[in-house]
């Protein structure tokens, strides 16, 4: 069975979650409509790592008894270690825009809105940015409007920012000290040149850029088995499409 792009992305996200150089991920929360990050978190769990996983949109056995308010209160206290955010636009300083393009509040294209990003991005020790579409319209030099900034001036309370940006083409690492991304690895079929052509912002490139590793046989077996089992209820369409598995009627 060939490796699906979503499986590669989930494995890449799982490696970032387990990065020993990053602050520890003891409690991870996953928000709305994020099947690939959810798969990555379940993969980490099924590999035996003792991580607490709170899926905001889990219908049965939802982890919160005070809804999303409890997620934000936990995060305010510093009890959520890692969160995932996306963006209609993401720029080279890791600013994210979930509002729209053109004039405020989205005279050209209107995105759904900022959700909890203007809080979570500040209050979580690390955020992994994830957006499958990697194109100049998404990865822009400067976002039209800022839902949440990637870096803050000294004095503004902030626990962390982006660790990395994972797209359908590559993995970027974020360096908050200089407010820039570095190309960390490219997915199969991509090159530094193809990434440059698809990216609206400037980024740093090391002398050697490795290929994003394939998921191992063990990772694939977990993703297609126990990870899929956990995800079927919340993400039936994703499980049918990626793992070719339908929920029992």
């Amino acid at each position, binding site marked *: 069975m060939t490796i699906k792009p979503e499986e590669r992305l989930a494995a890449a996200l799982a490696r970032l979650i387990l990065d020993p150089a990053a602050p520890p991920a003891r409690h991870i929360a996953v928000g*709305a*409509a994020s099947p690939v990050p959810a798969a990555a978190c379940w993969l980490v769990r099924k590999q035996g790592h003792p991580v607490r996983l709170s899926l905001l*949109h889990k*219908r*049965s056995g*939802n982890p*919160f*008894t*005070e*809804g*999303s*308010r*409890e997620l*934000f*209160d936990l*995060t*305010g206290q510093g009890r959520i270690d890692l969160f995932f955010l996306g963006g209609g636009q993401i720029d080279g300083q890791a600013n994210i825009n*979930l*509002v729209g393009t053109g004039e*405020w*509040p*989205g*005279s050209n294209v*209107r*995105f*759904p*809105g*900022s*959700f*909890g*990003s*203007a*809080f*979570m*991005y*500040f*209050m979580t020790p690390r955020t992994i940015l994830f957006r499958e579409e990697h194109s100049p319209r998404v990865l822009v030099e400067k976002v039209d*409007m*800022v*839902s*949440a*900034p990637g870096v*803050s*001036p000294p*004095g*503004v*309370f902030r626990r962390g920012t982006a660790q990395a940006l994972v797209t359908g083409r590559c993995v970027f690492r974020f360096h908050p000290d200089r407010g820039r991304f570095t190309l960390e690895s490219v997915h199969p079929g991509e090159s530094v040149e193809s990434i440059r052509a698809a990216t609206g912002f400037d980024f740093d490139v090391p002398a050697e850029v490795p290929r994003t590793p394939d998921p191992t046989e063990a990772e694939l077996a977990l993703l297609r088995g126990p990870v899929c089992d956990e995800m079927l209820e919340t993400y*039936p*369409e994703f499980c049918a499409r990626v793992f070719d598995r339908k929920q029992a009627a």
Partner: protein
Amino acid sequence: MTLPMTLTSLEAMAASVPDGAVLALPPDNSLPSVALARALVRRGAKGLRLLGVPVSGFATDLLIGAGCVAEVETSAVSLGEAGFAPRFTAALKEGRVTVRDATCPAIHTMLQAAEKGVPFMPLRGLIGSDILAHRPDWKVIDNPFAAGGDPIVLLPAKSPDIAAVHGVMADAEGNVWVGRRRELATLAHASKRVLATVERTVPGNMLEDERLAPGCISATYVDGIALAERGAWPVALLDEYGFDAAHVAEYAKLAKTEAGFREYLDRYVFNLRAQAAE
């Protein structure tokens, strides 16, 4: 709630919502009364100011499409897996609805301030976001408990005129059971009136049952209860029924155009059989 609890009809409940009211709706995974939204469309409500607690979904798009809404304050409007909310997007583009963008915990915090009866509460984050730049009603102060140089945002208390919730059951005392979605209690405490639709009524007093009491919105806060079977449909209701993804996808497809949206209303909102079902 006056005792003993008397049920009202869904249409009478909709008639009690004045045009221009600030109407708070929970998101699609947390028990919005879609039945009341449909009844408001039927009654031709105007100028409603919707509050997404903290985000907005199906019912908000329906009310906006039907011309019931002047303003929406929310942290996002979406149909989930079915994509962007088409009537919201169209109304925003045409300038028919004013959008006040927020971020989820800010909405919870403004309600928590109202619940406590204090004029404002602080919230971390937000500084450097354009959301804050577009909210003249939100202020930044220097944390008075720090040594200086610690800016923090203050949010005003928000007390919606009406909260529209769909619970699983109401008892003879007028308590409404919402299971683990206890953030709805904060919404109920903060709102001037709570209008609840429910799947069914049960005898007795749920507050006397230790296992049911924590999931109740106390009758203290509830101003009207109407029976509406499948009143959250097409969104999910706890473990009672799931999200009707096929229906929401059909809605999303039809609501891409004004004509398609009108067709949807005729079929599912104005249609007599749909009303009988409610």
